[in-house]
Each structure stands twice: as C-alpha cells, then as structure tokens.
C-alpha cells in the first residue's frame, strides 16, 4: 500500500473549496484538522439540495417530503452503521457531537448504573469531553474517578491501567487517539483487558474516524462516539453507538418530541430504539451531510490515508526538529494525526500568532486537555494536525513559518 501520489492529492484537494483561498494574501495552509476538518463540495451540495428541495420534519409525517426525508435520514443511519460495522442500524443514535454523546451516556448511566461507591476509569490523555462528564457524574453520585497514568512518551501506562481495572470500575472511558498528543491507544488490547475484568468500555473516537477504519464489532467496544465535523461532515451532528444490550437497558436522557410512545400527564412510555434517545426535531440536514461525508471518505482506502498522513507527519517532524529548542510533546510509538510541540524560550501563543500571519493555521493552547498540559508541565502547545488533503507543501509551509516565527521571537 503506497501513500497518495501528488496528482492524487491534487485531485483530493480539488474537492475542498476552503483550501484554495488565500489568508493575508498567502496560500492557506490548514493544519487545524483535529479541531475541525474542511468540507468537500459534495457535502456542501448535499446541504443545498436538502434545504432547496427536500426540507421537511421527519417521522410520523404522511406527506411526500416528510416521507422522503425520513427515508433519507434512516438510510443515513444505515450508512453510519456500515461505516463502523455496527450490527444493526438501530444501534446508531444521532447526537449533536462527541460531547453530547458522552453526556447522553453519562446522563443515562448515572440513573441506574453508576452509583455510590462505584468507579469510572479514564486515561490521563482524555479530552475534557470524555473527562468532565465522568468526573461530574462521580461527584454527584459519590463515585470515584480513576485515571490511568501516562508515561513520558505520552502513552497510557498499561500496567497502571491493569492495576486500576482490578479496582473493578463500572466503566472504562478511553480515547482512541489523543487530540493533544497524537498518541494512539491500543484500544483493542485495552478493551480485551477490561472485558476480562468484566468492565465495559467506551471508546472516544472523535480523533479516530478520519484517520483509521473502525470496526466496533472487531474492537468489541461497548460504546463508541464521534463527531461529524471532524470527518468532513457538517457541524452539529455526532453519533453514539452502543451494544444493543446497553441501549435496551439505558433509560432515556432527554425527553420530548418523537422519543415517546404514549404520553399522559401521569405517565410516559418511550419509543423503541433508536428513537428513544433522539429527543426533539433531529438535525436532518446534518445527518444527510454526514452520510455524504462518509460516502466521500469511502472512495479512499483508510490505510492509504493513514500512510499518507503518517508520511507527512514524519516529514514535518524531521524538518521541525532541526529548529533549535524544538521539543515534542507526545512521542508515542504509535501516533496519528497530530504533532504537538513547544519551542524553548517561546510561548505557544506567540508562535501561533506569527505563523497565522504567514497563512498557516495551527492551534495553540491546551486543546481541551488541561491535565495533559499539567502532566508535561507546559502552558500549552502548538499543534499541527493533518487530514487526507494535506500535502508536502503544507508541511514545508508549516516548517518555514515556525522557523521564521522562532527567529523573530528569540
């Protein structure tokens, strides 16, 4: 399997209008993909078509547009199910994003499963969205939050993880790929370890879905969450996958709209799966856009995408490490998508400000992972994150901009 050739990258880039603009008169180098990805024309066109001719509220409507939209919405659910190889479409719950997916899960589990004296296990590299919900549930229900430590490379210490599993947490919530460090957790192995101790596992796939193919049945994870906007889809749409067993057991978390079966003032019974968990008018346009994004992504081989991105990261690392004082934050053996660094004697935000003036979009700060910054004792990092449409020119643009910024700052 070879990474993309130059002409293939050019072809891929041609689908993304945002990449072809200039910023401050300079060619735009977009390396903030871990925050959100750009959208292919097909996704934009899908939204236009929907809002121009198909727009309707769905389910329970007997009129033509409503039937069509409902059908399209449910087809998209199947596409998502296939994308992560879920065994049934009704295991796919649409949310507004990873954060809401985790909150839904936490809000449901706290009602019957995460109780006083229980524990939840996370890793030291979690995004706030897969940390604070569990921390707060634990606080509210007098449960304990266990944190598997990171080693100096920014990898989860698997021995420590195993030790904490012995404390019999009721859930392990672990990220697949760290958005701050780029570390890839050995999720399959960790799930196996957890299941051996009878601990169900939530995988935060927010940073994984655009970089690696996902098979929830092979992983055997109990829950999997991700956001559309980080995989070339629209904003405001995300997914919670769960094993049927859990979805059946879980009480709903939000109420209203089509998630009910029978309602009286005294009592409410709830609709079947997946509707039980989808309260209110769904974001139909968002769901259809996500389907289109998946169809777009499926044209390419995920392994080729990963190879391509890894090659770019390797090239970027080689170049960046020639800059004196360059210090990588996160040097996991297995990493994807993200390079995080600081340069001695400079502040990340200063570097961000200056490279921006040169048309290079990177993110600086704590990347919603403050404990990671604390662990590595930095005020924040500069983070360059890659997607399938990035090119060697982007890498060169990044390198030149950082080099110049560091020169100016020292």
């Amino acid at each position, binding site marked *: 399997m070879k990474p993309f050739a130059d002409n293939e990258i050019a072809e891929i880039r041609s689908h993304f209008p945002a990449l072809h603009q200039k910023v401050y008169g300079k060619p735009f180098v977009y390396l903030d993909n871990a925050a959100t990805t750009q959208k292919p024309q097909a996704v934009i066109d899908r939204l236009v078509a929907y809002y121009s001719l198909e727009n309707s509220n*769905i389910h329970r409507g007997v009129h033509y547009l409503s039937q069509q939209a*409902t059908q399209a919405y449910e087809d998209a659910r199947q596409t998502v199910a296939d994308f992560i190889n879920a065994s049934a479409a009704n295991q796919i719950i649409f949310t507004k994003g990873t954060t809401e997916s985790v909150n839904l899960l936490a809000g449901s589990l706290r009602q019957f499963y995460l109780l006083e004296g229980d524990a939840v296990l996370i890793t030291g590299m979690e995004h706030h969205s897969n940390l604070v919900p569990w921390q707060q549930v634990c606080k509210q229900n007098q449960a304990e939050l266990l944190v598997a430590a990171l080693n100096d490379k920014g990898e989860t210490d698997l021995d420590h993880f195993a030790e904490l599993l012995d404390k019999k947490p009721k859930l392990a919530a672990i990220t697949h790929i760290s958005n701050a460090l780029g570390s890839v957790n050995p999720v399959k192995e960790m799930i196996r370890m957890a299941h051996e101790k009878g601990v169900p596992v939530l995988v935060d796939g927010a940073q994984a879905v655009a970089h690696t193919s996902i098979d929830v049945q092979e992983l055997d994870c109990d829950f999997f969450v991700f956001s559309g906007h980080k995989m070339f889809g629209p904003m405001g749409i995300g997914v919670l996958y769960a094993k049927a067993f859990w979805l059946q057991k879980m009480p709903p978390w939000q109420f209203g709209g089509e998630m009910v079966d029978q309602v009286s003032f005294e009592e409410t019974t709830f609709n079947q799966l997946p509707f039980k968990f989808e309260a209110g008018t769904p974001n139909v346009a968002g769901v259809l856009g996500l389907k289109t994004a998946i169809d777009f992504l499926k044209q390419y081989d995920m392994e080729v995408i990963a190879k391509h991105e890894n090659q770019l990261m390797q090239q970027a690392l080689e170049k960046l490490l020639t800059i004196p004082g360059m210090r990588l934050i996160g040097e996991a053996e297995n990493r994807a998508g993200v390079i995080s660094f600081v340069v001695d004697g400079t502040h990340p935000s200063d570097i961000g400000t200056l490279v921006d003036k040169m048309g290079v979009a990177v993110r600086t700060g704590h990347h919603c992972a403050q404990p990671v910054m604390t662990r590595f004792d930095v005020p924040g990092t500069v983070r360059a994150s890659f997607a399938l449409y990035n090119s060697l020119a982007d890498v060169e643009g990044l390198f030149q901009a950082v080099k110049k910024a560091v020169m100016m700052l020292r």
Partner: protein
Amino acid sequence: MTIAETQQQIISEFSLFDDWMDKYNYLIEMGREVPRIDERYKTNNHLISGCQSRVWLHADMRDGKIYFTADSDAVITKGIVNLLIRVFSGRMPDEILEADTDFIDQIGLKEHLSPTRSNGLVSMVKQMKLYAQVYKLKQSN
C-alpha cells in the same frame, strides 16, 4: 391459488387503474370490505402499535393453515390490511414465512409499507410472520 398467484392477481387488478384516484378509490372500497376482525379481538392485546392509525390482528390455526383477521381505524390502511390478508390468510406456515411483500411495491403502494411510516403495516407483516413461526414450531412439537 398460491401466494404468488394471489399476488399476481392483485397486481393485475391494480394495473387497470391509470391514475392514483382510481387506485385509492379501489383501496378505500377494499377498506370497507369484510372480513372484519371479531370485535372481541379488538383489544390492546391484538393492537399493533403505529401511531398514525391503529391495526388489530388476530390469527387462528385450522387444518395446518393460518387464518388472519384484522382491522384498522383508517380506511386506507385497512384497504392494505385486507390485501395482506388476502395474500397471507389460509396459508401454511412455510408459505407465509417464504413470501415477500414486493407486490405492494409493484402496485405503487410501497410508501405505505415503509418502516418510516407509522401506520402499523410493517409491524403487521412482522407479526404475521411471527405467528407463522410460532405455529410452525407448535406443529413440529
């Protein structure tokens, strides 16, 4: 007549109509027809949920064959209910299990059997197959 033959018959009946009005008029006519379900079976026990219109279904086994009766509070739904009964009632379990409902599609009423339409018809077909399964098991015991 086999299930396939009955389905073919229905298809040719519907092929006579060249506009939707005639088709729906025919459907409505069939919706008014007996066999209605015995009133004592029109209980929540026999109700197939579907929130726009309600469908009640009852099944009986006689001489190795399953006989369905059904009703709906909406006449168009009931028209389709009666079509389904015409096809599936009085059949042996295996016949019912093997049959599909493509004829509904072919007479241009596909949308009524869409899982996204909450009129109970999809659940009714599922329920009929379930009855067939259960009776089949009973027979083999």
